[in-house]
């Protein structure tokens, strides 16, 4: 058997092993899935003693196979503690694990995309650059992966030692799922290491495709892992599969598939991707700012751009996924929805709106700066001020609180809780308009960037430009018109208006990107993109993007968790610890900031470790020739 054939056989075997690893936990758990632990056996033996319960969510009847949720009391048995608030310790451990978990789940997806782009790109130099970029990504995530596992361990120990009664109950419900989770984690680790260490050995031809397939398997495992973890928080917010006393009714699928599981899954996938993109972009920005050569600056400029583009691609649909999640929350329990959006936690949503706005503003700013590195983009520069104005108006509407912070004297001068002019911006109809205007403007900035150094040569270019202009104009008219119309119709109809607004924004995204790509095919180049010749401000915008995203993740995680108020498991298991109250906005903000700071300091350490490994690579082996940097497919 020749060397090449042997390599092929080994790589196929490795791929099969990964598929096996993926399926193994599922197969192992099948019996328990099918029969719901040992319930039927018990039922047969003690037929007379069978007790049935009614599912709190699905309203189906099932045989009771679990113990009721414990009624905890404040004391060392249920809530052992240090001389400190246990909840804060748990908050910290959980948040750090989530940050790293999100990062290591997102980065392999980027790797898959970038590696795929490298495989399909015909330009060999560019393909090599893509491949190197994907390798850089996975290298960063590898160190972070170990830290994720360590933090996961810390989190479990924190649960076991500080909340034993609660964790005992949760693990009694999710016993089979937790084992599958552990096995999936083993599968994820094995796949990741084979994928990483097999990079050089499988870099050409058929073997490269096998390697790429491995990344697909790796990401499927990672995504399933996340879905399983999401089922626990889904259960805590909107329990199902148990009766009113919290007794497990034998159907593990009901426990997994709660009212909020699917929207949480979608929201987290998109969130992880946008977060991962932000972190990698910040890494590239940091390296760019620290670079001493034009070559390095060009490489990290390009890396930052790709990471930002991938992150923003997932950031754009994120508010819509969030909207779906909130809709499902309202459908599940309107009290929960009101607590979130109009009640106790409404102020945190104003902060969230502010952070979302910062994300989009940073993105737009980066794109405008990026136009500075391509010749020919000057023609768009003078219009940027109008985009700034539109963005600022959308942003101001989006962040205006319905109930304003004011002194009693101001309240009296105003004549009521709501301002007659600005108070109108505080309701959902206006906010939907605001965020859609912001996203549509971001799409417009992207379109300008993509055509910055090009002049269309198609015969219908004039018509195409007019069509695009009209499309955007009417999109704005439609979004703003619907936002105004929303004030004059019943609330339930108004909620439905968000659909045409979102459809308008997404139409701009898909149709205008597609039309622009067709128009720019074979376009006349005004000049190459001069990678590395971008302002330092752009890199700070990338860092701002990543920091804002980290902060927002911490904030939203806190909001989602604290909406349960004084419940460990909503309406099933009450939190009787001394900390079953909602923190003040100020305390929460400080805690989130501390978590963000800790994450960034620790990730800088991870980056530093990565750079130690990079220094061992001989300079001559660096891929790509940045001086003659080809244009990445992602940019045009």
């Amino acid at each position, binding site marked *: 058997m020749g060397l090449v054939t042997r390599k092929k056989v080994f790589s196929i075997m490795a791929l099969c092993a990964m598929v096996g690893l993926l399926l193994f936990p599922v197969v192992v758990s099948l019996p328990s899935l099918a029969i719901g632990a040992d319930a039927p056996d018990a039922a047969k033996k003690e037929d007379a003693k069978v007790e049935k319960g009614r599912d709190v969510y699905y309203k189906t009847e099932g045989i009771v196979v679990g113990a009721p949720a414990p009624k905890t009391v404040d004391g060392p048995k249920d809530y052992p503690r240090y001389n400190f608030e246990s909840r804060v310790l748990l908050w910290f451990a959980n948040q750090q694990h989530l940050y790293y978990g999100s990062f290591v789940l997102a980065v392999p997806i980027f790797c898959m995309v970038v590696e795929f782009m490298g495989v399909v790109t015909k330009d060999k130099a560019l393909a090599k650059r893509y491949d190197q970029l994907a390798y850089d990504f996975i290298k960063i995530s590898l160190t972070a992966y170990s830290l994720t596992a360590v933090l996961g361990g810390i989190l479990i120990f924190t649960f076991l030692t500080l909340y034993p009664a609660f964790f005992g109950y949760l693990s009694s419900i999710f016993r089979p799922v937790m084992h599958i989770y552990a096995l999936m984690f083993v599968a994820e680790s094995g796949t990741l290491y084979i994928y990483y260490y097999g990079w050089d050995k499988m870099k050409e031809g058929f073997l490269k495709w096998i390697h790429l397939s491995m990344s697909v398997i790796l990401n499927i495992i990672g995504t399933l892992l996340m879905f399983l973890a999401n089922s626990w928080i889904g259960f805590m917010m909107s329990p199902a599969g148990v009766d009113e006393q919290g007794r497990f009714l034998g159907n593990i699928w009901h426990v997994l598939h709660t009212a909020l599981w699917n929207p949480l899954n979608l929201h987290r996938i998109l969130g992880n991707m946008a977060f991962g993109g932000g972190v990698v972009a910040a890494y590239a920005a940091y390296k760019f700012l620290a670079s001493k050569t034009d070559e390095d600056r060009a490489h990290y400029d390009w890396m930052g751009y790709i990471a930002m583009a991938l992150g923003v691609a997932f950031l754009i649909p994120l508010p819509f996924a969030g909207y779906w999640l909130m809709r499902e929350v309202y459908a599940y329990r309107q009290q929960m929805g009101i607590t979130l959006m109009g009640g106790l936690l409404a102020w945190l949503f104003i902060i969230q709106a502010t952070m979302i706005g910062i994300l989009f503003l940073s993105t737009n700013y980066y794109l405008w700066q990026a136009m500075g590195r391509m010749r020919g983009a000057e023609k768009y520069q003078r219009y940027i001020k109008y985009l700034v104005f539109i963005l600022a108006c959308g942003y101001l509407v989006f962040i205006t609180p319905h109930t304003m912070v004011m002194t009693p004297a101001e309240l009296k001068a105003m004549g009521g*809780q709501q301002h007659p002019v600005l108070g109108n911006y505080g309701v959902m109809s206006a906010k939907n308009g605001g965020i859609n205007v912001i996203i549509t403007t971001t799409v417009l900035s992207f379109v300008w960037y993509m055509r910055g150094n090009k002049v269309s040569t198609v015969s219908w270019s004039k018509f195409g430009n007019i069509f695009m202009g009209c499309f955007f104009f009417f999109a704005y008219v439609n979004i703003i018109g619907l936002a105004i119309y929303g004030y004059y119709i019943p609330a339930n109809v108004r909620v439905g208006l968000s659909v045409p607004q979102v459809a308008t924004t997404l139409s701009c995204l898909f149709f205008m990107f597609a039309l622009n790509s067709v128009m720019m095919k074979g376009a006349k180049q005004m000049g190459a993109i001069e990678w590395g010749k971008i302002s330092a401000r752009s890199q700070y915008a990338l860092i701002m993007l990543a920091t804002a995203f980290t902060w927002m993740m911490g904030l939203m995680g806190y909001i989602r968790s604290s909406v349960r108020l004084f419940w460990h498991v909503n309406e099933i298991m009450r939190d009787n610890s001394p900390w079953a109250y909602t923190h003040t906005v100020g305390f929460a903000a400080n805690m989130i900031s501390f978590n963000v700071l800790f994450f960034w300091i620790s990730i800088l350490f991870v980056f530093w470790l990565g750079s130690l490994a990079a220094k061992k690579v001989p300079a001559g082996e660096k891929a790509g020739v940045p001086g003659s940097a080809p244009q990445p497919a992602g940019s045009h």
Partner: protein
Amino acid sequence: MKALMSVGALVGAIALLLLVGMILDVVPSNTVRLVEGYMPIQMLLEVACFVAGFTGLSYMLSSMGMAVPRFWQGIGFWAFVLLYLKFRVYPPIPFSVRAMYGTVSLVAVFMWVSANEDDWKKFKQPIMNVLDAQSGANKMLRYAYLVLIPVLVGFTSFNAMRPKSEEPVELRTVHPAPPASTKVHGKTYTLQTSQNPYRVNPEGKFDQEYSNKLIVEQGMGRLMAPNANPFDEKNQGYLKYVKEGGEIFFQNCHFCHGDNLNGRGLHAFAFNPIPANFTDPGTIAQLQETFIFWRVAKGGIGLPNEGFPWASVMPPWEQHLTVDEIWKVILFEYWHTGYYPRTWD
């Protein structure tokens, strides 16, 4: 193009003069009225007109060789936003909101002046000139800043730390989450499923659509359907109940909530905070009828924990009104304001 810019410049000049007049209190801030019902979009359009006007002015001044430096354009625009919010919009905007708007405007100005390298250089130039201090005037300015900036910081710190007698700001939760059910006069009402028994069609069945068509025009107070006057003695069903609800309202509620339901009743300003304004789209317009039922029945004293600091003197009306009277008064409130109660279908 030049003609268009001239028009823009004219608009800009007039608008600026008006604003200056308002700042100096020569021109009342309601000279150009903010029209009820259109205020939010009117404000945005006004600001857009100012922006168009400034573009025109800038263009015209450049054409005449008197271009305004980018530095002063940026500073000037930011000052304009602050002054517009302070002197043009009425009633006065609370400081917290003006601070938010001011910060966003500052960020927007920064994004504008630094969007490309040339503009950024132009913007920075005066600052760099003062820092470099190559000329006598710049040297003087630099010394002035050396004194003024610490004084300003000191004064701001002093002002922030100085004991004040005014009441602190409050983060009130105006719409605390309602309970799943509420017990009124011995009967339990599930808020998510209960309905107003008087929102009925001529056949006596609950009919949201039917009653929606018979309300007044929002903000205008005009009847939306002809002959839908509830004060007609011959009315039966929904409109009759609206009238009865109105009588209850004017006997009990209007002293605080006002005869126009806008929260400005006879006693309104004796309270802190003043009573709810039902004509605002953020109050009853976005709530279910059962939410209002719960709030009316239980009053300020029945607010849940998250409604802290319970700053409401609303009486628990279940002690004074029957369940039927509460439902009828709610019917009247929606009819009069022209809003539709929220539904979850």
